[in-house]
C-alpha cells in the first residue's frame, strides 16, 4: 500500500544545502519534506567527513561536518521539517495542474507544488566488490544490507569487511546462521573494539570463522551462490561453501535516477538559471553541488546563497497571491516570531 502525502515543497537530499533551504523557505512560511537515501541528515558532511574540519564556512574559522549538520538542524528546528530518511526518490512526474507527483522506493507518494533537488554528488550506494559476475547474484544471494534477518536463517553466510556494519551483522546473524565466516583483508578492524572482542571470542569458541584475504570469484547458478572462491593473503585459493554473501565496502556516490527525470543536464549536473536556480522544468529547482551554471563553484556557501534565491521563487509558486516582503531577521518581528525568539 502506498502512502500519499500532500506537500508544498519536497526537497530531495538532506545535506547542508537541503537543510538550509528549509530555513530560507521557512522564513517565507513554506513547510518542507526532505527525502534522503542516508539514514541521517547531513549528506556528505555526515557520511564522508563527520569529524574532518571544514575551513570555508563564513564566520566559522573551523567546523566539522558533524558540527555543521548539528548547527543547521538547530537553526531549522522552528520550521519543523518532516524527514523521510533511508529512502530514494525514484520518479518525478508533472500532473495536469502543474504540480508534481514524487515517488520513493519506500512506496511513498508526494503530491507537491515544488520540488527542490539538493542531491549533492548523487545518492550514496553500496560499493560493489570487483568480483566477476557478482551482479548475477545480487538481490538473490548477495546483499549489501540486511533488511530482514529471517532471510539469512540457516544459511552459510560470508561477510566481508572490517567496519561496524561487517562486525555488527556478523554478531547479529551468527546465532541464526548455519555458519558464519568473516573475511577481511588484514588483522585490524575499524569497528568498535567491543564488537571486535565479541567476534574474537566466538572464533575462539569455534562458533564462527575468521579469514584474511579477498573474494575473487563466485560459483553457483540462477542467482544462488554455492561457493565463494577466496584468495588468502599468501595467494592460496580456497573454496568456501557459501549461500549468502554480504560485502560491506562502504558507500560511493552515483547520480542514480536523477538522469531519468527529463531535466536538461550539463555533464551529469542539472542546468539552472542564476536568478531562481530553477531547472528546465518550471517548479523544479536545483541547488548545491548537483547543479550547474556558468561560473559554478561546488562550495557549501554557494549552495546557501542558491537556497535563499530559490526560496523567493519557490514561495511565489506555493503562495501565488501573496505579496512577498523582503525582511531582515535582525529587525522584523514577524520573522522573529517564526523563529520563536519574539
Amino acid at each position, binding site marked *: 500500500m502506498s502512502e500519499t502525502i500532500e506537500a508544498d515543497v519536497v526537497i530531495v537530499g538532506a545535506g547542508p544545502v537541503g537543510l538550509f533551504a528549509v530555513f530560507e523557505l521557512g522564513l517565507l512560511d513554506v513547510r518542507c519534506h526532505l527525502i534522503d537515501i542516508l539514514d541521517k541528515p547531513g549528506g556528505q558532511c555526515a557520511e564522508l567527513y563527520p569529524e574532518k574540519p571544514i575551513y570555508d564556512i563564513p564566520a566559522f574559522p573551523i567546523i566539522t561536518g558533524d558540527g555543521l549538520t548539528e548547527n543547521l538542524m538547530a537553526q531549522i528546528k522552528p520550521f519543523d521539517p518532516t524527514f523521510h530518511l533511508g529512502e530514494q526518490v525514484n520518479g518525478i512526474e508533472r500532473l495536469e495542474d502543474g504540480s508534481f507527483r514524487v515517488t520513493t522506493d519506500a512506496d511513498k507518494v508526494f503530491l507537491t507544488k515544488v520540488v527542490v533537488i539538493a542531491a549533492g554528488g548523487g545518492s550514496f550506494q553500496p560499493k560493489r566488490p570487483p568480483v566477476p559476475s557478482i551482479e548475477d547474484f545480487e538481490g538473490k544471494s548477495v546483499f549489501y544490507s540486511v533488511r530482514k534477518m529471517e532471510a539469512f536463517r540457516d544459511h552459510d553466510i560470508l561477510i566481508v569487511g572490517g567496519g561496524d556494519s561487517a562486525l555488527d551483522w556478523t554478531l547479529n546473524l551468527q546465532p541464526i546462521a548455519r555458519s558464519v565466516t568473516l573475511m577481511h583483508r588484514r588483522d585490524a578492524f575499524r569497528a568498535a573494539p567491543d564488537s571486535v572482542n565479541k567476534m574474537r571470542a566466538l572464533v575462539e569458541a569455534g562458533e564462527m570463522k575468521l579469514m584474511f584475504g579477498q573474494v575473487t570469484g563466485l560459483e553457483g547458478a540462477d542467482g544462488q551462490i554455492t561457493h565463494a572462491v577466496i584468495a588468502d593473503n599468501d595467494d592460496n585459493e580456497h573454496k568456501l561453501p557459501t549461500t549468502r554473501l554480504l560485502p560491506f565496502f562502504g558507500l*560511493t556516490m552515483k547520480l542514480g535516477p536523477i538522469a531519468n527525470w527529463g531535466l536538461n543536464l550539463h555533464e551529469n549536473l542539472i542546468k539552472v538559471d542564476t536568478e531562481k536556480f530553477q531547472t528546465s522544468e518550471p517548479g523544479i529547482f536545483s541547488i548545491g553541488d548537483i547543479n550547474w551554471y556558468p561560473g559554478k563553484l561546488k562550495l557549501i556557501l554557494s549552495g546557501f546563497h542558491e537556497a535563499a534565491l530559490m526560496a523567493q521563487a519557490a514561495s511565489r509558486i506555493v503562495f501565488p497571491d501573496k505579496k512577498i516582503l523582503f525582511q531582515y531577521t535582525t529587525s522584523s518581528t514577524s520573522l522573529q516570531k517564526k523563529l520563536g525568539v519574539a
Partner: protein
Amino acid sequence: MAKITYIAFDGTPYEIEARDGSTVMENAVRNAVPGIEAECGGACACATCHVYVDEAWVAITGEPEAMEEDMLDFAQDVQPNSRLSCQIRVKPELDGLIVRIPERQG
C-alpha cells in the same frame, strides 16, 4: 618540484611537474589524469584516489598511517603497495616517483 609519472590502467603515462607540499592526488586531478576520482576532495574519507606505488618508491613514500589504512579497506583490489594518493605529499626526494592507477575506484 618533483616529476611524477602516473600510469593509467590502459598503460598511458602522464608526466607531471608537481610542487612540493601538494599531494599526488591534487596533481592528478588538476591535470585530468584519468582514474583518480577523489570524491571527498582529499579528506582521506572515500578511497577513490587509490594508486599502486612503484616498488622502487615504496620505501620513500612510506607506510600509510592508521586512518589511511582504515580507508584502504574500502578500496578495490588492495595490494601491499597500495596508497591513497591524497595522503602522499610531494617533496624533493619524490622526484621521479611512479604510481599506477587501478582499473577502478570504488
